[in-house]
């Protein structure tokens, strides 16, 4: 059965989150999320999740630099003393660490843009590592990758479409000598001038991330993706109440199958749903064609 995964805004409300796996993002080693915790908070939360009889994952999915190694190694070593069930990672340093520190914890590779084929997914699966497929794929490709087993889909989230180590918003303020409005984690919008497309923009101490302002939602396609192992609902750009309702909708869908009423409920709650690339192929042009385009 597909396992529902999400993150938690308010730990006093943990029981209201109808998820099979609670993931906790690390503020130091995780990509931006409004739910990320400090190391101390994270380990306390791990214990709390286990006390509530749930599975718990730790998300350490930032690209790690050499200057992060000492603290990452220390963090991973300490984390092995806690009852963690999953590590969600995107940097091979995590795999490198566990190559020399064997663990029974399930590793899940989620590098967002890099898992686009059954062949690449198989590399990890052969090593006992689960993978999460990329967003920018047509449904048939997602089905093919999922059919290999041990694959997750990040089925409800704002697609992460740009991940930089640069502090682009602070730089913009500096460039034009504007008094800063923001602190790290402030959610901005940017709009591309010609296409008029809106994106979310967030900066933190690790750089800047941009997200599609529409919500990528796999819903009726769940019928074809029953072989998937995980269904991830990201908490970005919504409040706790919406997240808890979204979990309930997907829980019902996983149990009973997708329905028009369920989709209506979801789209009423989130008016900006999109199917991403599920039903469209990106242009793949031959050499020379770009100049004419």
């Amino acid at each position: 059965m597909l396992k529902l995964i999400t993150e938690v805004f308010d730990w006093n409300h943990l029981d209201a989150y109808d998820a099979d796996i609670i993931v906790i993002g690390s503020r130091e080693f995780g990509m931006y999320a409004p739910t990320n915790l400090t190391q101390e908070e994270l380990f306390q939360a791990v214990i709390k999740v286990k006390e509530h009889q749930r599975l718990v994952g730790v998300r350490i999915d930032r690209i790690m630099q050499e200057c992060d190694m000492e603290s990452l190694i220390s963090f991973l070593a300490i984390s092995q003393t806690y009852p963690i069930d999953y590590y969600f990672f995107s940097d091979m340093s995590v795999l490198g660490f566990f190559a020399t520190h064997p663990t029974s914890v399930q590793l899940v590779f989620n590098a967002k843009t890099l898992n686009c084929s059954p062949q690449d997914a198989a590399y990890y699966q052969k090593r006992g590592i689960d993978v999460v497929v990329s967003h920018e794929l047509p449904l048939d490709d997602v089905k093919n990758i999922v059919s290999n087993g041990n694959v997750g889909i990040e089925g409800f989230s704002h697609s992460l479409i740009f991940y930089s180590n640069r502090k682009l918003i602070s730089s913009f303020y500096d460039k034009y000598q504007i008094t800063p409005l923001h602190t790290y984690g402030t959610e901005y919008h940017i709009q591309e001038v010609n296409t008029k497309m809106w994106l979310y923009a967030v900066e933190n101490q690790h750089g800047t991330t941009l997200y599609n302002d529409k919500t990528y939602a796999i819903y009726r396609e769940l019928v074809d993706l029953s072989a998937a192992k995980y269904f991830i609902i990201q908490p970005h750009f919504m409040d706790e109440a919406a997240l808890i309702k979204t979990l309930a909708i997907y829980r019902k869908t996983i149990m009973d199958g997708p329905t028009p009423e369920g989709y209506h409920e979801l789209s009423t709650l989130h008016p900006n749903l999109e199917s991403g690339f599920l039903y469209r192929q990106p242009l793949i042009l031959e050499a020379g064609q770009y100049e004419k385009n």
Partner: protein
Amino acid sequence: MKKIELLAPAGNLDKLKMAIRYGADAVYIGGKSFSLRARASNFSLEDIREACAFAATHQAKIYVTMNIVPHQEDFTGLDEYLLYLHEVGVRAIITSSVSIMERSLALVPKMEVHLSTQLSIANHLSCNYYQEQGVSRIVLARELDLSQLHSLRQATSVGLEVFIHGGMCSSYSGRCMLSNHLVNRDANRGGCAHSCRWDYHLYHHQQLIHEAPFKIASKDLCGVEAIPQLIEMGIDSLKIEGRMKSEYYIATVVRAYRKLLDACQEGRPVAMDEIYQELAKAENRPFSTGFLIHEPTHEGHLYAETSTPTKEFVGMVLDWDEATQVAKLEQRNHFPCEAQLEFFGPHLDNTLVSIHEIWDQEGNQLDAARHPKQVLFVRVPFKVSPYDMVRLVKAE
């Protein structure tokens, strides 16, 4: 001190040969499959064979990029392609796919596998993991500074390649889907539309922060001042970006870095100003030092700044007649018959000459060189050689 490799880009055979003539130790190229930079008139199979043969006669190496993030249908013909590359003498593939890495190591173990910067590898645990898998070299993420590079070098023995010049993604490489979402072009399969260079506006709670466009793109990288330390710390290869750049750009940039590397490695003093002046003669965007020296400030980002070459490329030497002191040139850009030209080449320092006459192949005197690729003759009172290049310094 081990000799550090100067690795140059090439989008076609002519550029590849120019890169090697002007001092590259190795050249990276893309075939028509599996490679990013779809606009870079990628190499046919026969071109790759010829490239390897040419490189072999000049003690240079050829690396072939297989750096797309492949989808299922992209794997067709993988084995045949890998076998062919090995057969014709390709030294290494550069890939960002773990399954291509694994397949290549199993099928043609003598052909090296280098991992692309598309994987944004930036720490020794990742390097060591991949080395255990059989990878020979890591093309490191461009987000590392010299201090981190030094620490990383100390902590791994896998080959390390560092970008030192050219365009840079503003994102971590391979982690930008702007083109996919804005214009439906798959950035990680060669379709990058450089959407990072477009104009955006920044809002907070629907309020425009400033009327000036919010920019995402970075300035180009110029790592000249980092070179001595990169050599000292034992980096294996220094990479120039730009498979889509011109022959002139490649010749100018490769030659400048060749001079710098040779001087550093031989312990000779280096006039850094001259290196910068030389690089400025090529068609670059504005420079920054990227992450090499310090974290980029707004000065490392590309807002409205532009840059034009300080010198214009006007011709290529085809031949020179010692008896008449006349050079035969192929025209590349307009220049007048009264002009100061600068000749330079792999074995020719920048040398100025004033010209007062231009002739065409029929012996007609011309008031200007107007036609691209036209064969022309000018007086040059010193030896010049085929493939030397000519810049216009000033019209007189």
